[in-house]
């Protein structure tokens, strides 16, 4: 059987209280290169589903703590596409019909035939893989994921991983620099999950004062501390039936980490000043811009909590690693009445965006306020961006540095810009020159790519470079 994306062996969750069934199923499926994880009861099954991403479930109808049909109902509710094969020594027609009506993929009477077990699991996994593939293609056709706009390979990888975990209850840790859109990723996961009808509750652990954090997370009872004049429902409780995002989780102080660990293990906790245990059924997502392993080593983050939340990790790429996504996002953030000048495009591609998508959005909001004549020119962007050394090189290559300096307002405010001379109409020659310079800057001086981008032949490009006196930026190779 061919491997799933990311070269991870397919995984089968076997839920049966008889260890001999799990052992035998594991040995049979290993022949097909499949991994197995065993759960002896319904609770162990739920824990396994929060910590792993099975491609198929083998589920016994009789479990010590709950009926297999109850567990099947839960799985189909939370993991609609996950194929479940019922194992049953009870072949009463009504039981089998009930299981199939609830969405079981198939059933195998016990004692099971080993060959049939392998064939049924293979078929179920193939179908599951096709379902995932269809949703991937549908998503690719729309050019993004949820509200995220992207086409860069790094983002495509992220979307594929998100597809794997979206329709599950697995805990996900989202890494990424500040401003990369970690909350957007979390929202998209929530929207694509069976919990989308429930609440999406996000809390930024860095933004809550330490003294209020416990009350914010767990809630408090009236009179539990000075100022607690009424009962407050905390974020964990608000997320019941939905998804909880703990953003910047590394900023949670150690005392709260211990309390959080217990709440995450049991999905039970007490409000501050409360005596009653509150149950909340939420899916946990966590996000951080820090390397949590480093925080663990430094003693600032509990190792047990780290293992609890780092079940499946997603990395959101920095904007500077996303190539042309900068321009796609820029067009998205701009009002429809505005377009980017070629030199502005080159500038946006050259700037390293340390504040990532958030910084780009702010820069374009700034620019859209002061842009004139329907075009965003370099001088409309905030000064820190124009003055960045990487940007300076692009502007010099495109010959607009002087013009930018000439038109540079005294400050970045709209009023300051209004005082500057309005941009004059440029000739076609000037526009052509800018376009050629910008394409060279964007392609790092690669002539073949520049030709493709400009839609002209190489000979024409040589002629125009000579005519306009444009020098190629130094390159390692010119393709």
């Amino acid at each position, binding site marked *: 059987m061919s491997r799933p994306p990311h070269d991870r062996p397919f995984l089968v969750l076997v839920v049966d209280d*008889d260890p*001999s*069934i799990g052992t*035998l199923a594991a040995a049979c499926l290993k022949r097909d290169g499949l991994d197995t994880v065993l759960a002896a009861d319904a609770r162990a099954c739920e824990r396994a589903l929060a910590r792993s991403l099975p491609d198929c479930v083998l589920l016994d109808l009789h479990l010590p703590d709950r009926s297999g049909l109850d567990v099947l109902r839960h799985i189909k509710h939370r993991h609609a596409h996950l194929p479940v094969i019922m194992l049953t*020594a009870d072949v009463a027609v009504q039981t089998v019909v009930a299981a199939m009506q609830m969405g079981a993929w198939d059933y195998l009477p*016990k*004692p*099971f035939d*080993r060959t049939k077990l392998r064939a049924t699991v293979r078929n179920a996994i193939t179908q599951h893989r096709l379902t995932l593939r269809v949703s991937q293609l549908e998503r690719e056709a729309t050019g993004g994921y949820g509200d995220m706009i992207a086409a860069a390979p790094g983002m495509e990888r992220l979307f594929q991983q998100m597809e794997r975990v979206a329709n599950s209850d697995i805990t996900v840790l989202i890494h990424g620099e500040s401003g990369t859109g970690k909350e957007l990723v979390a929202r998209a996961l929530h929207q694509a999950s069976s919990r989308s009808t429930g609440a999406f509750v996000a809390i930024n652990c860095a933004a809550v004062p330490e003294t209020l954090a416990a009350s914010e997370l767990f809630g408090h009872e009236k009179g539990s501390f000075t100022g607690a004049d009424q009962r407050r429902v905390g974020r964990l409780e608000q997320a019941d039936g939905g998804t909880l995002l703990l953003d910047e989780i590394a900023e949670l102080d150690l005392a709260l980490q211990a309390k959080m660990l217990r709440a995450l293990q049991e999905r039970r906790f007490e409000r501050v000043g409360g005596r009653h245990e509150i149950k909340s059924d939420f899916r946990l997502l966590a996000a951080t811009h820090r390397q949590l392993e480093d925080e663990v080593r430094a003693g600032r983050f509990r190792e047990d909590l780290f293992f609890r939340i780092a079940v499946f990790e997603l990395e959101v790429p920095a904007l500077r690693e996303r190539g042309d996504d900068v321009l796609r996002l820029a067009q998205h953030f701009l009002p429809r009445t505005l377009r980017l000048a070629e030199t502005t495009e080159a500038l946006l591609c050259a700037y390293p965006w340390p504040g990532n998508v958030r910084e780009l959005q702010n820069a374009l909001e700034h620019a859209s306020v002061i842009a004139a004549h329907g075009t965003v020119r370099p001088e409309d962007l905030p000064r820190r961006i124009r003055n960045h050394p990487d940007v300076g090189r692009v502007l010099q290559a495109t010959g607009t540095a002087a013009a930018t300096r000439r038109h540079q307002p005294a400050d970045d405010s709209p009023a300051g810009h209004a005082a500057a001379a309005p941009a004059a109409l440029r000739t076609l020659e000037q526009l052509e020159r800018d376009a050629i310079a910008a394409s060279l800057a964007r392609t790092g001086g690669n002539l073949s790519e520049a030709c493709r981008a400009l839609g002209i032949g190489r000979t024409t490009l040589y002629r125009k470079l000579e005519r306009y006196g444009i020098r190629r930026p130094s390159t390692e190779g010119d393709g």
Partner: protein
Amino acid sequence: MSERESGGPGNVDPLLRPLIPGYLAARREDLAMLESALAEGAWLRIAGIGHRLAGSGGSYGFPHISKLGARLERAGEARDAAGARQAIQTLHQVVTQALAGG
């Protein structure tokens, strides 16, 4: 009892060969539990063990263990001491013979 019934060493699937000793050892533990359950009149425990044996024996190449498991499950549900005792004795023979047969 035939070798086929007891699951002797005939045409044993190579996949099963390393698993069978562990499986049979676990059945020995089942036998001990069945005997004490019968002594205590713990009928549900007898039915439960019988149910598990019925579900696993055939998959390991011991169809007779599955049949005995089903008999034990029925005996447990019917509180049939004689039936349970007879099934336990036969199971004892099957497991012993299978262990001796390697």
